[in-house]
């Protein structure tokens, strides 16, 4: 007879798996309402630490070549595929989905990574432009990542919703602090383990489990956060007002579907800035 070894569900900050700085945890139940696991409950200071590491990781990730970023995103899909059984089991336990439905959700999550991986080197080809100007100049608009993104993943999805929140942010070279669904956080922690083994530089993606209302105002008012995705929040209007202080880019609740195997180019572009360069040309 042996004791089962239980997993400690922790946060993912800067490529490491710390407990919450506050030491807090909260109970997560399965779909039948039975106790499933204790999960770390992120605090204001975890948010603070995450923004610091996200900021320091962002420039390196943005200056990686689009080709390289695409490879890393594709690698995430590969690693996720290898953990399929674990994700299927977790989704079923959490949500009560059938095996087929759970497999479909994992399929969508994997396919979404591949879809996004393909976009890294095509964003500028599609959304950039050579502008016609009246003068001897080349006038070129290109798209740059906006910087550090804070995102609240949808509350009703355990895996694919989170993937469709993270991928559109990091595809262009942003770093992200993602707050998971409060009641369905188990897959998020497993996803963090996938990201950790996918050649993704530490700090590009930070995943915090906990309560969105508690953490929301700290992220929305944080002057070192450049964009905020309000999908999983319950006080979006209030947070949008706080976000106005430093002109954060805001993705409003319900703006994009997060359940499919494909994202949206507009979603990616919402987290980017247009840079226009004038360059003199000879006659």
């Amino acid at each position: 007879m042996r004791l089962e070894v239980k997993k400690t569900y922790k946060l993912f900050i800067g490529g490491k798996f710390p407990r919450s700085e506050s030491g807090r945890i909260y109970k997560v139940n399965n779909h039948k309402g039975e106790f499933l696991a204790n999960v770390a409950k992120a605090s204001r200071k975890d948010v603070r630490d995450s923004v610091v590491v996200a900021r320091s990781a962002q420039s390196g990730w943005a200056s990686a070549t689009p080709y390289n970023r695409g490879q890393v995103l594709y690698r995430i899909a590969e690693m996720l595929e290898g953990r399929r059984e674990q994700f299927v089991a977790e989704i079923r336990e959490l949500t009560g989905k059938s095996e087929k439905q759970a497999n479909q959700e994992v399929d969508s999550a994997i396919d979404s990574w591949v879809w996004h991986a393909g976009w890294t080197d095509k964003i500028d080809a599609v959304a950039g432009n050579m502008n016609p100007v009246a003068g001897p100049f080349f006038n070129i608009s290109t798209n740059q990542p906006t910087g550090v993104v804070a995102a609240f993943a949808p509350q009703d999805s355990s895996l694919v919703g989170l993937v469709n929140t993270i991928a559109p942010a990091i595809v262009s070279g942003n770093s992200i602090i993602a707050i998971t669904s409060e009641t369905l956080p188990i897959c998020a922690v497993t996803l963090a383990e996938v990201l950790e083994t996918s050649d993704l530089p530490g700090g590009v993606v930070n995943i915090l489990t906990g309560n969105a209302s508690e953490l929301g105002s700290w992220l929305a008012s944080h002057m070192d956060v450049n964009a905020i995705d309000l999908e999983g929040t319950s006080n979006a209007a209030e947070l949008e007002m706080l976000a106005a202080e430093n002109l954060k880019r805001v993705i409003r609740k319900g703006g994009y579907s997060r359940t499919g195997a494909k994202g949206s180019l507009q979603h990616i572009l919402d987290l980017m800035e247009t840079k226009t360069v004038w360059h003199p040309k000879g006659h």
Partner: protein
Amino acid sequence: MPTIDPEAVVGSRITNQSLSRWLHSLPGVDKVGLEARTASLGTRSIKTDSKAWALDMAIKMMDLTTLEGADTKERVRSLCLKAITPDPTDLTTPQPAAICVYGDMVKHAKEALGKNKIHVAAVATAFPSGRASLPVKIADTKDAVNAGADEIDMVIDRGAFLSGNYLEVYKQILAVKAACLRKDGTRAHLKVILETGELETYDNIRRASYLAMLAGPDFIKTSTGKVSINATLPITLLMLQAVKDWFDQTKIQIGVKPAGGIRTAKDAIKYLVVVKETAGEEWLTPKYFRFGASSLLNDVLMQRQKLTTGHYSGRDYVSVD
């Protein structure tokens, strides 16, 4: 200011043997105890009012430093302007104690600081290695003092110290101290850098502290910031104990300056706790405690902004350095 008779402290005429005997009779450092003590002080929680005070004090104690081979007149000037107005969005922000530069930059720093009370500290004596003959070190010091330096940060000869040639180290400090004298009879403040990262053991750091203090400097300073191990909390605690014991014994108060590797406001506050708990409140002033730092100021300013505005600040709201 009280003075001491070194021979009375050492207990005989100053020779290499007597210095050696004196230094090696100092009690050994309890490494485990020292590190445990620092770790426990480092966990103390500092609440809002005290934190606001500590952040301002950290700025007032700062020797804002640029010691790069690539330093230019303009870079020194911009650092000085930053010292004069650390946070243009909040003019209640205090100014740092000093600007710390290489000797040839002193005149540019003095010019940029104008009538401001901010001191100019110059590193001298073949900083950071200290590998030059004594006449060169003295000339280096005099050059900086003549250019108007208010404070001189000298390095000890670690090679001589490690090979047991304590008398040589002691004599060099005395000679540099003499070189700090200005023509009008006043003297530039002298800080003695022990370069603790090269001294290998805590026992050596304690000995070097006492040897330096015997020569009567105004400060003892941990490091140059140019080797892999810079200021650490345990080393600073050890040096604070030394200056405190020295004060109890001789009534002469000497300051401590940790330098290198202190980058966050959180670290700085830990140091202040250690100062308060080790040496006491008499040392909690820029006259007796300094931070040698460059990137620390921006982090302290961001924490200060957090306290005044209620939300976290970012690098976009402090100047680039």
